[in-house]
């Protein structure tokens, strides 16, 4: 292995062919984007107020959403994996629903629950004057709604695969269930938690439908990068392409950086 000699094995042609077509599905749109990019005006376009505002907001809200998904999603995954409560299959289905539901529907549902006239939104608004929709926190809530299921599903799967005997050993040493979770279970599923966190962040960064429905499209307040692209496509195609390129660059950089360090020994 260390001599540098390698055995060359030709990939079987059906796998090679189908796999290459599969890869092309992802590569071709990127090429399309690159050919339409106004490279000479790129610097000026991506530093415009609209783009800078949207980029800042997107980074802020996606990171916040990923963090909230982590804090709430890991305990939720633990409950789903370890506590046999009545109605567990139903709760699990509801938690994963945003993965299949059109995000616009999710945004509308959030509005009915948390909006000015919403079941919970109205009493909160009456009592404090605080209004979630059309605020930065509205964007974060919409992002959490669509992103957290990815973390919950990943972490719950990992929890089910943990060899429970190490946890049993910790219990015989006097550790409470919370201590066992914190000091034994969590480190054992660490790689999956990190993978789930990256997935949730990525989903939040690209979020469009729930955000536009629930939080609106106000530049500097709720207009994230995907919303800015959508608006720009109708007015100024060059700006749309430039913003898209920024999104691709940010996402690709993060995924490349995290992949080796966080995902390699995990899922």
């Amino acid at each position: 292995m260390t001599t540098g000699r390698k055995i060359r094995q030709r990939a079987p042609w059906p796998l090679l062919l189908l796999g290459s077509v599969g890869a092309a599905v992802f590569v071709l749109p990127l090429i399309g984007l690159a050919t339409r990019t106004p490279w000479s005006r790129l610097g000026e376009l991506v530093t415009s107020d609209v783009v800078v505002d949207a980029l800042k907001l997107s980074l802020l809200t996606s990171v916040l959403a990923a963090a909230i998904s982590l804090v709430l999603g890991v305990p939720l995954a633990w409950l789903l994996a370890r506590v046999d409560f009545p109605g567990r299959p139903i709760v699990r289905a509801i938690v994963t629903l945003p993965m299949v539901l059109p995000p616009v529907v999710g945004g509308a549902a959030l509005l009915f629950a948390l909006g000015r006239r919403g079941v919970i939104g109205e009493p909160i608004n009456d009592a404090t004057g605080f209004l979630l929709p059309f605020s930065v926190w509205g964007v974060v809530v919409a992002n959490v709604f669509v992103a957290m299921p990815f973390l919950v599903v990943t972490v719950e799967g990992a929890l089910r695969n943990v060899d429970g005997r190490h946890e049993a050993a910790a219990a015989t040493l006097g550790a409470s269930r919370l201590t066992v979770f914190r000091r034994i279970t969590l480190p054992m599923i660490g790689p999956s938690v990190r993978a789930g966190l990256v997935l949730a962040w990525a989903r939040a960064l690209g979020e469009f439908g729930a955000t536009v429905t629930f939080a609106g499209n106000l530049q500097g307040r709720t207009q994230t990068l995907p919303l800015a692209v959508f608006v720009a496509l109708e007015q100024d195609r060059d700006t749309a392409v430039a913003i898209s390129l920024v999104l691709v660059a940010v996402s690709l950089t993060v995924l490349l950086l995290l992949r080796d360090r966080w995902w390699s020994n995990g899922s």
Partner: protein
Amino acid sequence: MMGLDAHLVVQRSGDFRLDVAFSIAPGETLALLGPNGAGKSTAVEVLAGLTPLDHGHVVLGGRVLDAPADDVFIAAEQRRIGVVFQDYLLFDHLSVLDNVMFGPLALGQRKAQADALANDLLERLDMQGLSDRMPPQLSGGQAQRVALARALATQPDLLLLDEALSALDVTTRGTLRRVLAQHLSDFEGPRLLITHDPTDAFLLADRIAIVEDGTLSQVGSAEDIRRRPATPYVAALAGTNLLVGTNRAGLLTLDDHVHDLQTADTSIGGAVLITIHPTAIALHREQPSGSPRNTWQTRVASVEPLGDTTRITLGDPLPLGVDITPGATTALDLHEGAAVWASVKATEITVTPAAANAKSGRN
């Protein structure tokens, strides 16, 4: 009494039912010896509090831990039972020191106190140089000592060793049996050794309880069991050949017999207990090739069919028990008085220091 008083009844789906009752005095080592599937691991689970009893009781040091009739069940984390698990179950993401400190910290001790206790235990087990290692970097023997230190660090009321030596290779087992014997005698509470290996039971325990198909078939000292085996399984177990002698760089001179043997284990010198498993001895009609010291001519003293195997007892110079198949018995034409050659590999002769035996250490 302040020891352990247990009556374990567990009904598993299907036909399997565990129903065993035993007690262990403080400072006493009881071995629960039985074949795989006899219910030993179920016994570990109910004692440790990982599975509830269906009937019966577990009382440790006067404290009721499990009593279904009175609706009492104390959770594993409140039982104060130190368990050394079969494959140790060390926490791979924690250093050796942090593994040992885990129990004291979980029980609410201060960090400095837990650190001092853990360091002290590791030192007593000759592991002080390894406190910063991670468990995957340890050998099997080192991992076993860390597991023992981790269990002892909680200052338990009962020490429970589940197949603590079975993950080790033959050479390491001899050495570790001695280490274990030493630390078992240091521990003042009752000790329970779960094993399928009669050698471990005979050498480490004061009393042996034999479990077969979920029930105890015999309880007694090694001597009782050797003299009066109650079932064919116990008879086969009791046949483990145990000799007393002296090891000089692999050359074994025996106290009671005029015959020398050669062992591959040269790490333990001086007075030793020698064990040779009955299946490790081969019988031949003609003189086989091999080390002349471990090959000798003898006569068959008795032939005893035991179902799947036949127990041959050899005559002078070494009255050893040999287990062979009924087919081989016929093929070799073995009958009482038949002349036969016996041979055993040097690697199959296990030695344990006679002086560091648990029983002699206790007196």
